[in-house]
């Protein structure tokens, strides 16, 4: 395992420079180093008496980061209380704890090196490094050492460390998961062992088992059932007690009642020599139910985790440029202290600390965390950037525009919080149904006990227990929430936030999709769609002339022209440029007078238009080009349809939904969009009241309407529709009052959401049908005494488990409406 060839740096393994002037004394030998950085690191390691690291390592050591000196200043940030609030736990006055993420750990020797190095610092109370997660948990005394000093010491031996922020939520989720797993383990282990004692009693022929042995077996079962009932089943008892105190009936009540009664009766039977004990049934029932609950909890935590990262998207520190543009010297400040108008430098690989716009530079921004969009977005100077997105390519200077609560990330977090705070109507409904169900179950159990007392008193109690257990509506109560939770998590990963509790349910019922703005289907800016050359000149030549005329103009049409006209097309210099507002531009090109603009403006120069030019073929914005005595060309511009719009409309149709456009925009524009997308029902020039009336009319005819817009305007219409969908665009998001928000601004999200909702609805339906059907079959059997408690336990537990497992199918099932062919289908749509 020797890693000390003579030709390379003893520490990092890189080739040695010619000069060979860097050395470090390690275990009495002079070892060659490649640079002052490695020399410093090696000396720090050897000086700390940790040179044996070099004997046991299996990979070369990390190089000192080039900007280590600069970082030293940054580290002081982490001593500020407002920054520490995010990740430091105060255990006692002289004991603080934090979790650090370590970078540069490549082998086990690194762990040892860091642990030894840190634990020798004065004021360091404990260091634990987890090899698997590369996380260090450190405890220190703030009186004698600062966190920045700890981080600096780690940097001094070539590693990098930074605090893992807000580890609290993760920790508590881990604790919850660990406790739940332990409960399942206790119940499962108890169940297996109790079964061992129960089986001989079931199998033994009459008279082959002595009473002593029977008693001993029952006592053993009792001892093993005690922890299962009092520890594993404790959540059921607590839940039942809470429900009773609030004077309502939840599904924990019959579970607790069934387990409690069965246990008490079995204990009594053990000591009085009763005929039957059911310790095996109790443990099995508890085990199966806990399995279902454990899976449900895991799904919940996973769904929460897919949104939790949003909270951590904003970086802790930012580089503020106080003297820009005269100097590029940056100063490290906590991101929370940034204010509107501040200029910050964002290096590649860093996250933008706030929403803002690029003042200098050009880069690509990776917004996948926020929108689910995997392609980085190109950002030019002046472009808006979103806090939390990652700068991918080159350093940029950003002017901060929105901070803290106003940022897009915060808005998304609030939306998500609001959604999770609202219980979907369907869950409330099943809960109410379950409450009645529970009441009925308890009454029926009581009634059948009374009846059986007359028929066969010895069996009365067990029949009652069997009825309680077998018909408890656990599956019914788990049927909906589990499926909805899983679906929410999955939507979130695709950049779709269901901001209201009922959104998924409503999505599945949508019959009419109404686009309330053409802007949701188009890109919202003009683009050149056609060039008609009229005088035998090539289109390129016409474009070149037009570009020359429009070169100085800032009109949207000029911008559209200039993006298309290729630089190669001869751009003759235009002289005597004259701009006539509302009409066009006139100039001298190559000695001839040219005009571009409206038809009247150009015809004044070119003469009477021919028949061909007068026909209005479609509703596009037209611009004409002419010179003295001659028409040259006609350019058509239109708001370009979003690349995916065609395919989306088709997909919505295929799903059996109607697509409509109800817009307030001018009729020609709306008609053009509708024609090109093949949408037959469209209306233009509508006021908000008109739109609301149209939606109402649709609803009266039995439609479930989803309104797709930017989510800000037309509040009455959005409120009228059963479901409002907003395309999340920048700042607008914070005011968005929609049920569903498409963070990526892509229509594909809508189709995904509809597909997932549809699947969720199917699974919820399956679950409910199963839960109800099971109860309908089981109840009469239990009442008539055909179901023994152990059968009841298996039946109910397995039924709950089945429902949860069915819901978990949603996690990675492919929705019916998204197949691979989609990508190709979108290509011609541009």
């Amino acid at each position: 395992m020797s890693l000390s060839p003579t030709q390379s740096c003893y520490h990092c393994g890189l080739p040695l420079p010619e000069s060979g002037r860097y050395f470090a004394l390690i275990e009495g030998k002079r070892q060659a180093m490649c640079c002052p950085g490695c020399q410093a690191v090696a000396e720090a390691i050897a000086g700390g008496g940790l040179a044996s690291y070099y004997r046991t390592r299996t990979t070369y050591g990390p190089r000192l980061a080039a900007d280590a000196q600069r970082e030293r200043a940054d580290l002081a940030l982490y001593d500020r209380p407002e920054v520490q609030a995010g990740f430091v736990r105060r255990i006692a006055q002289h004991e603080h704890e934090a979790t650090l993420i370590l970078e540069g750990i490549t082998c086990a020797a690194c762990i040892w090196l860091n642990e030894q190095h840190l634990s020798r610092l004065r004021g360091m109370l404990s260091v634990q490094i987890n090899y698997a997660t590369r996380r260090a948990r450190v405890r220190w005394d703030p009186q004698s050492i600062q966190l920045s000093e700890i981080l600096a010491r780690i940097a001094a031996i070539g590693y990098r460390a930074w605090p893992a922020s807000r580890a609290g939520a993760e920790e508590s989720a881990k604790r919850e998961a660990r406790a739940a797993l332990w409960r399942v383990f206790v119940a499962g282990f108890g169940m297996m062992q109790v079964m061992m004692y129960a089986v001989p009693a079931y199998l033994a022929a009459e008279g082959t088992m002595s009473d002593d042995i029977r008693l001993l077996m029952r006592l053993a079962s009792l001892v093993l059932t005690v922890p299962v009932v009092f520890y594993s089943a404790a959540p059921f008892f607590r839940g039942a007690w809470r429900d009773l105190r609030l004077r309502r009936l939840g599904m924990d009540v019959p579970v607790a009642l069934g387990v409690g009664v069965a246990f008490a009766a079995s204990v009594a039977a053990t000591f009085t020599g009763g005929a039957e004990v059911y310790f095996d049934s109790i443990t099995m029932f508890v085990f199966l139910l806990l399995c279902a609950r454990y899976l449900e909890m895991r799904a919940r935590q996973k769904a929460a985790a897919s949104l939790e990262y949003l909270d951590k998207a904003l970086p802790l520190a930012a580089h503020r440029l106080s003297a820009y543009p005269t100097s590029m010297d940056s100063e490290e400040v906590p991101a929370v202290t940034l204010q509107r108008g501040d200029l910050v430098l964002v290096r590649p690989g860093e996250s933008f600390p706030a929403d803002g716009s690029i003042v200098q530079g050009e880069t690509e921004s990776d917004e996948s965390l926020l929108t689910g969009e995997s392609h980085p977005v190109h950002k030019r100077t002046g472009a808006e950037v979103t806090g939390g997105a990652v700068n991918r390519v080159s350093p940029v200077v950003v002017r901060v525009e929105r901070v803290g609560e106003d940022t897009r990330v915060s808005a998304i977090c609030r939306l998500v919080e609001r959604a999770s705070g609202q219980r979907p109507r369907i869950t409330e409904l099943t809960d109410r149904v379950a409450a009645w169900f529970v009441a009925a179950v308890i009454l029926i159990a009581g009634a059948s006990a009374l009846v059986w007392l007359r028929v066969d008193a010895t069996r009365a109690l067990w029949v009652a227990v069997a009825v309680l257990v077998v018909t408890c509506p656990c599956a019914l109560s788990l049927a909906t929430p589990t499926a909805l939770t899983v679906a929410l998590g999955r939507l979130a990963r695709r950049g779709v936030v269901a901001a209201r509790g009922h959104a998924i349910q409503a999505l599945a019922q949508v019959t009419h999709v109404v686009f309330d703005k053409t802007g949701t289907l188009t890109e919202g800016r003009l683009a050149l769609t056609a060039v008609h050359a009229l005088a035998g000149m090539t289109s390129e030549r016409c474009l070149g002339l037009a570009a020359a005329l429009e070169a100085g103009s800032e009109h949207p049409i000029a911008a559209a022209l200039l993006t298309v006209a290729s630089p190669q097309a001869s751009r003759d210099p235009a002289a005597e440029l004259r701009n006539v507002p509302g009409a066009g531009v006139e100039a001298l090109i190559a000695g001839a007078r040219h005009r571009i603009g409206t038809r009247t403006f150009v015809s004044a120069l070119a003469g009477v238009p021919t028949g061909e030019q007068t026909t209005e073929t479609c509703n596009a914005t037209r611009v004409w080009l002419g010179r003295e005595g001659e028409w040259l060309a006609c350019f058509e511009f239109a708001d370009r349809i979003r690349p995916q719009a065609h395919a989306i409309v088709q997909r919505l149709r295929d799903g059996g939904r109607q697509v409509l456009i109800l817009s307030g925009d001018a009729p020609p524009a709306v008609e053009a969009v509708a024609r090109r997308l093949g949408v037959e029902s469209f209306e233009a020039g509508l006021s908000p009241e008109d739109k609301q009336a149209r939606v109402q009319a649709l609803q009266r005819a039995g439609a479930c309407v989803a309104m797709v817009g930017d989510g800000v305007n037309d509040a009455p219409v959005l409120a009228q529709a059963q479901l409002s969908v907003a395309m999340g665009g920048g700042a607008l998001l914070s005011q968005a009052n929609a049920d569903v928000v498409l963070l990526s601004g892509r229509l594909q999200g809508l189709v995904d959401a509809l597909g997932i909702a549809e699947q969720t609805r199917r699974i919820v339906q399956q679950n409910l049908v199963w839960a109800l059907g099971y109860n309908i079959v089981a109840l009469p059997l239990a009442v008539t005494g055909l179901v023994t408690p152990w059968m009841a336990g298996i039946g109910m537990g397995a039924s709950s488990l089945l429902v949860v497992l069915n819901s978990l199918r949603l996690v990675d099932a492919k929705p019916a409406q998204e197949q691979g062919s989609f990508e190709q289908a979108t290509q011609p749509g541009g």
Partner: protein
Amino acid sequence: MDILYLLIPLSVVLVFLIGALFWWSLRSGQFDDLEGPAHRILQDDDDAKGD
């Protein structure tokens, strides 16, 4: 069959022992890092002198 009078209580005791053992190992974080200890055993910190 008399041996059952011993074996049954013994099995109960064993179950609790095993349970307690598992609980202790879960609590002391032995299942948190399943990779590190395998490497750490190779390090000897005897010759690491304190400063």
